[in-house]
């Protein structure tokens, strides 16, 4: 095993561990912190089926954002959809036999990387030109956008311009997944791409990216509007 392989194998495991433990610890915290009072933002669904429907609309279509800021919605929605497709397409590197559905999706060439990059650039621009978001934006907002743009750019390079040998990539990734380390492909663009992704994984649980899990725990969106019908009881707030 070369030094580089050893380094990246360790790096990858550390990153994955930090991400998993960090993310799940956050989720555990969100899930276990009590919600002493009923605070759904009304009009709200009156049963849990309705809440699922509301969540699907929020998570799947960014409904609130759609009604509050159409421009950011376009940028944000494109970005997230492109990200989702990209992640799905990458999944074939993680399963030895690629599930048929995945192969099918992968076979469509829709230049999703470019859409992803474009949407990120658009969001970056919006941060700068709207005075209210310019005021709000912190260093980490810009850093994250730049990070993601770099990941997208290197990904685009390996796919369209400086092709990398994806069999080697898959071998390397499968080696990680099955705990049998394999040599890392020596292609520098791939290594940069991979490094950025690992760094992002490490930063993820400590960042605003936690909105991905956190949205499911937002009381104003996930509570049933049944305060009069069902008594809402949580440990610290109601004794008995």
């Amino acid at each position, binding site marked *: 095993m070369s030094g580089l392989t050893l380094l990246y194998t360790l790096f990858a495991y550390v990153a994955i561990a930090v991400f998993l433990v960090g993310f799940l610890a956050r989720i555990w915290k969100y899930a276990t912190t009590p919600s002493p009072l009923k*605070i759904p933002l009304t009009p709200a669904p009156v049963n849990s089926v309705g809440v699922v429907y509301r969540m699907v609309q929020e998570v799947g279509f960014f409904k609130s954002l759609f009604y*509050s800021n159409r421009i950011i919605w376009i940028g944000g929605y494109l970005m997230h959809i492109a990200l989702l497709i990209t992640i799905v397409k990458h999944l074939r590197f993680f399963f030895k036999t690629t599930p048929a559905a995945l192969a099918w999706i992968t076979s469509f060439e829709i230049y999703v990387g470019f859409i992803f990059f474009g949407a990120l650039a658009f969001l970056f621009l919006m941060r700068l030109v709207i005075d209210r978001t310019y005021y709000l934006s912190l260093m980490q907002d810009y850093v994250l956008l730049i990070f993601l743009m770099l990941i997208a750019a290197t990904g685009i390079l390996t796919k369209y311009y400086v092709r990398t040998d994806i069999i080697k990539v898959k071998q390397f990734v499968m080696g990680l997944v099955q705990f049998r380390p394999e040599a890392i492909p020596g292609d520098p663009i791939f290594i940069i791409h991979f490094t950025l992704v690992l760094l992002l994984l490490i930063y993820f649980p400590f960042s605003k990216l936690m909105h991905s899990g956190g949205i499911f725990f937002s009381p104003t*969106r996930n509570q049933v*509007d049944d305060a009069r019908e069902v008594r809402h009881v949580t440990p610290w707030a109601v004794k008995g």
Partner: protein
Amino acid sequence: MAEEITTTEEKTVDKDIAALLTSPPKRAPEPTPELTGKIVKPKIVQGAAAHYKPHVAKPEIQEKLGFPGTLVENWQEAAVAKMRELLGKYKSLQVYMDICVRCGSCTDKCQYFLSTRDPKNMPAGRAELFRQVYRKYFTTEGKIFGKLAGAVDFDLSLLAEWYSYFHQCSQCRRCSLYCPYGIDTAEISMAAREIMDSIGLGQKYTNEIIGKVHELGNNLGMNEAALRNAIEFVEEEIEEDTGVPVKLPINEEDAEVLLVTPSADFFATPHLESLVGYAKVFHQAGINWTLSTTAAEAGNFGMFVGSYYHMQKIASRIKQAIEELRPKRLVVGECGHAWRVAYAFWNTLIGPFDMLNQKYPRPQHICEFTLDLINRGALKIDKSANDEFVVTFHDSCNVARATRMGDKPGGQFDIPRELIKAVTNKYVDMEYDTIRERTFCCGGGGGLLTDELIDVRVKGAMPRMQALHNVMETHGVNFMALICAICKAQFTKIMPKYGIPMEVAGGVHQLVGRAIVLGAKE
């Protein structure tokens, strides 16, 4: 010697409060915004509203509520400890601290930002004041990168901003409606106020009132004799007006209905007119009802300061009244935040209501109650009594975004409108973006209804005034119906500043009361 040391320490702390209140110094009030009929997104002006600060509660008031009398010496530590406690107690706070992505979609939704243009009055800008401290003491990001990552020491100047901007939020939840994650800045401002109270920095207006309710049972601080007098006066008025002796029973045991209503209904104008309306409804429907001197206040300012303890303590008076008087049903009068506490929190705070009749909502809103009677034909209505009015309706934010009426989501919008249409002939809605769940706050909610914040209140009312102005111009509207005691007090005070006569504001049951034909039942 020891004594001397304590006095100097106290003086430093007092000086701290003084410094905090005078930075930046007061400015001359700005002119009332012009009525153009448009709500425009302003360019930001930093610090434009930094000088608005409510009076600080005196030590006596604070101590009565169990808070430190004045800013404690180690207030910074104490505040961080309190923050830790609240983060563990409220999922909303914990989740909302982490997941804001600063997308900006809430930024142009708050009435206080739209009118003051101060970026710290943008919901996410306001919450940022809280998050700066959160990052500093609770996040890895903040501990490593500090200021670079937006983590800020909780120092006196930040506390000054807290005191200023968390008292320019009426906890109306409009921001939550428009946030992709539902981040509710009201929850954050409640937590901020609870933290400030816990270190001895309370707001005079709210805390004084909480003290009064605990002591006398109502926000206005009137005793039982005063209350009985007021009610007798109302009875006389009605009889004079209509010739019918309509009674307002007090402390009747075993009545069908216990009515809990904001105490302003007993004294203030135009609140009183709604009380007359309720009384006529009960009288005409022949329903045996009562008021209670124990529960002579539906309002619950405990919510404004985020204090679960005080909210529960205030609500427990209702429970006590139910136990004393054994009514079968519980009905709540016109009040926005009170209805939120009643609808969404009572069951948790003082429930379960097993002793009340299960066939009816527990509690029931007076609009639900009256509309139901009208629909069943129990009241004879003469709509033409309101013909001099072209009516519009202001959705109170607490009712609109935190509660429901009836069985269906959105009943809180439809039921009051149906009720208004059942007693008047001419009704128009205001602009789409300013009604129903999208409604703007009146500008005086959340503990802001105090004289020293009058500038903030005038500005906060701006979006509503623009929308009202439009329907007045285009449809000749001359009555804006309300279902909130604070809205009524706020609008009657603010509207004249915009050149709109205060008589334009009134209660929904004011209209109902006028239209009911007394004694006409077969």
